[in-house]
């Protein structure tokens, strides 16, 4: 183990940055800038009525996903470099499971709602 620690590391650990401190400080500042702009944009879009109402959920989703991406890249330092391939693979699997759970539940429940007896009838039957 000792000799391994001394030898050159061929991999980046998650959240690690091999670059010099000035560029990583820059990365945090850039990340903060992007995050502030995206947060203001999503709150602004929700509070004001500048955006066409039916398109608002899509816009908010896009802004949120963009901000999550900003956080992953600039704060958690997930990159596409070959050094962090394990990190990215685990992340991809995580996103897959999250998508499966969230969208799966939503589709199943919407379907159940469609096929279920209207609530008033159900209440009457229970009486």
């Amino acid at each position, binding site marked *: *183990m000792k000799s*391994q*620690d001394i*030898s*050159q*590391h*061929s*991999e*980046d*650990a*998650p*959240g*690690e940055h091999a670059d010099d*401190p000035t560029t*990583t*400080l820059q990365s*945090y500042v850039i*990340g*903060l800038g992007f*995050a*502030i702009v995206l*947060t203001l944009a*999503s*709150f602004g879009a*929700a*509070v004001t009525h500048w955006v066409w*109402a039916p398109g*608002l*959920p899509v816009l*908010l*989703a896009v*802004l*949120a996903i963009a*901000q*999550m991406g900003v*956080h*992953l890249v600039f*704060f*958690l330092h997930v990159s596409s470099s070959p*050094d962090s391939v*394990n*990190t990215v693979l*685990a*992340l991809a*699997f*995580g996103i897959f*499971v*999250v998508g499966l*759970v*969230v969208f*799966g*539940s*939503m589709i199943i*429940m919407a379907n159940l709602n469609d096929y279920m007896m209207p609530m008033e009838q159900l209440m009457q039957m229970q009486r």
Partner: protein
Amino acid sequence: MSAIAEAIPLSERGPAPTRIVVSFGFWLFLLSDIVIFSALFAAYAVLAQRTAGGPSGAQLFDLKHVFIETCCLLASSFTCGLCVLALERRARTMIYVWAAVTFVLGLSFIALELSEFIGMFSRGINPARSAFLSAFFGLVGTHGIHVTAGLCWLAVMVAQIATLGLRPKVAQRLVCFSLFWHALDLVWIGVFTIVYLGART
């Protein structure tokens, strides 16, 4: 990556250094934590309209309040990053300063959330009122508990740096804490978009 490391085949390089194994393991924990949150998000998405005659999200949520909470958490995420940069430079004083700023910002987030919850409870708005409120308190409350746990962790880390010094193990733990803290901010993006702003759509 050095040329020497490149020349040795992957199968002959031996086990990865502890630094990488620990961080990767912690990364997997964070992802599984996010999967837990995804279940709560799914529950919220399904139950958001089931208010059972009680108040709906649009009536309950004060976006100004939520905006300040978001700013607190985002700023604390940034200062947490600065804390890790100070750790890389082994600048003890700056570590303490940024850890303190992170702690105060995190604490104000929790205080704001708690005051929001207490305000709701005093008006009889509790998890038992409707399915929507169960899902709301479940999701936002779990995030709040995570942030509280993170604050305790940060306090322990500062105590460890003060007593044990900046030995590699302690530094490793502080890096893991920063990953945890950034991940919580990531979850909060989902919370304020889906729960608070989603109520406006």
